[in-house]
């Protein structure tokens, strides 16, 4: 996929955006209830009463793989994003986090289930998608690949405006987006080309290109993975500041739990197409309950957990999702005999388990928590 695919593929230009799902919420989102959520987010307790801005229900995305096999890239996902919230979507490569993000952006059509924005199901007509993508913007991983080397910074940022037919105050809008992204004074960058910028500056240009359309949500796929270590913190601080200043909600796709600790309010951990644990970052990363999350957290340098659990092997690919709990062949709790002691080992091997109201997809954890309460 090309870097500007999100906006550029939308085809015809049109000023009519009436009745699109995006427009409805745009006018529907009141600043007052938005700031409520933001305060909740900052103290680390998510306000679940706030209506979700973006949500997915029973989402499944399947791809045909060679040999007639079917890859279940996303396999039964429910997820909500509140206004002003930063959600980290974490997991190893191949777990389906990028496919989920692309589906939430409308770049991929779900095989089952729905994506809804502001309470209205996403519609997949060209016109509806175009309006949607004004409200929900994508920020890609590698800024060198996402920017056209022959476009100046000004053109790169203004492209979204031109596609959406916004012609008034173009210069001010571009300047404003650049300075919000931390490129100041913006005029100094108008006529520069991507190769004249450092990696961090290029990522800021990509972010400015998203901001110029005044979105309500940005979806960032590994936004700092290709950046130098010392620059990484600056870009993360920028995402936090945009949330505080503009109430901008974000989904950050990452394999890096440190990033989630740095900026996210809530985290959803994915394994083989499904969210296995979800909750506030402060809880999930200090007291993980799912054995997979426990293992991921335990191998971090200076982990808050005492003993490192290095899982053997690798996740199976999405065309061969194991029966029963999909994590059971690698599960240290099952292998160590704890599941048997709790009398759930048969269930682990035989019955599939999804995220429940307890926000965890694990037979063992579920039994233990009902036993203690």
């Amino acid at each position, binding site marked *: 996929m090309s870097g500007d695919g999100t906006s550029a593929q939308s085809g015809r230009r049109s000023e009519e955006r009436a009745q699109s799902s995006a427009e409805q919420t745009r006018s529907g989102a009141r600043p007052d209830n938005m700031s409520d959520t933001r305060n909740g987010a*900052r103290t680390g307790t998510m306000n679940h009463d706030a209506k979700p801005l973006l949500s997915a229900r029973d989402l499944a995305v399947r791809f045909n793989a060679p040999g007639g096999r079917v890859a279940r890239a996303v396999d039964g996902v429910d997820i909500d994003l509140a206004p002003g919230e930063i959600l980290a979507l974490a997991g*190893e*490569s191949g777990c389906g986090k990028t496919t989920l993000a692309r589906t939430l952006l409308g770049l991929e059509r779900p095989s089952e289930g729905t994506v809804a924005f502001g309470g209205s199901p996403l519609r997949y007509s060209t016109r509806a998608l175009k309006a949607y993508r004004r409200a929900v913007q994508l920020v890609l991983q590698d800024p060198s690949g996402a920017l056209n080397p022959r476009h100046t910074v000004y053109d790169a940022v203004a492209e979204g405006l031109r596609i959406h037919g916004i012609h008034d105050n173009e210069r001010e809008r571009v300047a404003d987006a650049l300075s919000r992204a931390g490129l100041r004074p913006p005029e100094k960058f108008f006529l520069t080309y991507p190769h004249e910028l*450092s*990696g*961090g*500056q290029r990522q800021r240009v990509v972010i400015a290109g998203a901001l110029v359309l005044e979105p309500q949500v940005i979806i960032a796929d590994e936004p700092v993975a290709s950046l*130098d*270590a*010392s*620059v*990484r*913190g*600056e*870009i*993360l*601080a920028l995402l*936090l500041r945009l949330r505080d200043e503009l109430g901008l909600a974000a989904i950050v796709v990452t*394999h890096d*739990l*440190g990033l989630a*600790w*740095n*900026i996210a309010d809530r985290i959803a951990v994915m394994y083989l197409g499904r969210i296995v644990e979800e909750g506030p*970052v*402060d809880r999930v*990363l*200090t007291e993980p309950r799912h054995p997979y999350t426990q*293992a*991921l*957290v335990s*191998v*971090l*340098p*200076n*982990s*808050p957990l005492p003993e*490192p659990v*290095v*899982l*053997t092997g*690798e996740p199976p690919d999405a065309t061969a999702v194991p029966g029963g709990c999909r994590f059971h062949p690698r599960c240290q709790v099952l292998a160590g005999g704890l599941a048997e002691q709790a009398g759930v080992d048969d269930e682990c091997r035989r019955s599939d388990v999804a995220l429940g109201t307890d926000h965890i997809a694990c037979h063992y954890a579920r039994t233990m928590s009902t036993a203690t309460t």
Partner: protein
Amino acid sequence: MTPVLEIDDLRITYRGSRGEVPAVRGISMSLEPGDTLGLAGESGCGKSTVAGAILRLLPRETQVTGRIVLDGDDVLTMSFGKLRAVRWAGASIVFQGAMHSLNPVHRIARQIAEPIVLHEGLSSDAAEKRAVELMAQVGLPAWRASSYPHQLSGGQRQRVMIAMALACSPQLIIADEATTALDVMIQAQVLALIKRLVAERNIALVMISHDLSVLADTCDRLAVMYAGKLVEDGPSHEVFAAARHPYAQALSAAFPTVGDPAERRNPHGLAGDPPDPSNLPTGCSFHPRCPVVRDDCASTSVELRRARDDWRAACLRVEEVA
């Protein structure tokens, strides 16, 4: 004990269309058997150039001065025949992109066997038997011997590279961002493997990465490079926890400790960008980005200073910072 590797005032200048670019500007270090050194820094700081110089893998026109002594022999002056004998058997390198380092049309066992055939004169059948033993040591099943690289996952390919690096029992292994592209869990597996093998065989290890937290976990000593020079060198856990040089501090703060309330919703970055090696700032090359810069930093060039017996930092404020 005699050092496995001794580097003395190493200076490396690339010559290209942009003129002369000093990539490494005077580095000294020494490793004994069993020593593990983490070499940290960002892109362009010269850390991979140092790795390449140790086995003379840099472009021919590159100007290299100083001394690199590998097990008693000077690498920079040795004959090409001797150099070939030293590569793989004396020291080996594990690079980051295993897919690009492996030959796509050769089976795994044959690739691991190749250096054994060349260096130890074994028949290819005997060498492939050794290759399968090595595969077992790095946790690859024997049936993978007949696989091609594209049939392996990234973690498995990196294990193949490690098996190759071990094939001729070198005394030094250089791992250049060997786990950077891997997933967290696979990275943990590969790091545990490297740690175990280095300890078992008493090999010296130079591990290069931009991720200080990984280096601190794997290596005993940590050296941080900035703009072609070492700016800090000391015991790894202490350097990671309380670096003396402001750049090393920033680099270790860039990787948050999950669970530390001070770093929750508080990412630390460093304003500015790494300097262009062909146009370095005067004085301390870090001074334009330094959060604790003082007046004389722009004019005084600063070398490594002793902070403690086993700990050095190149900062005018080294006593204050401690």
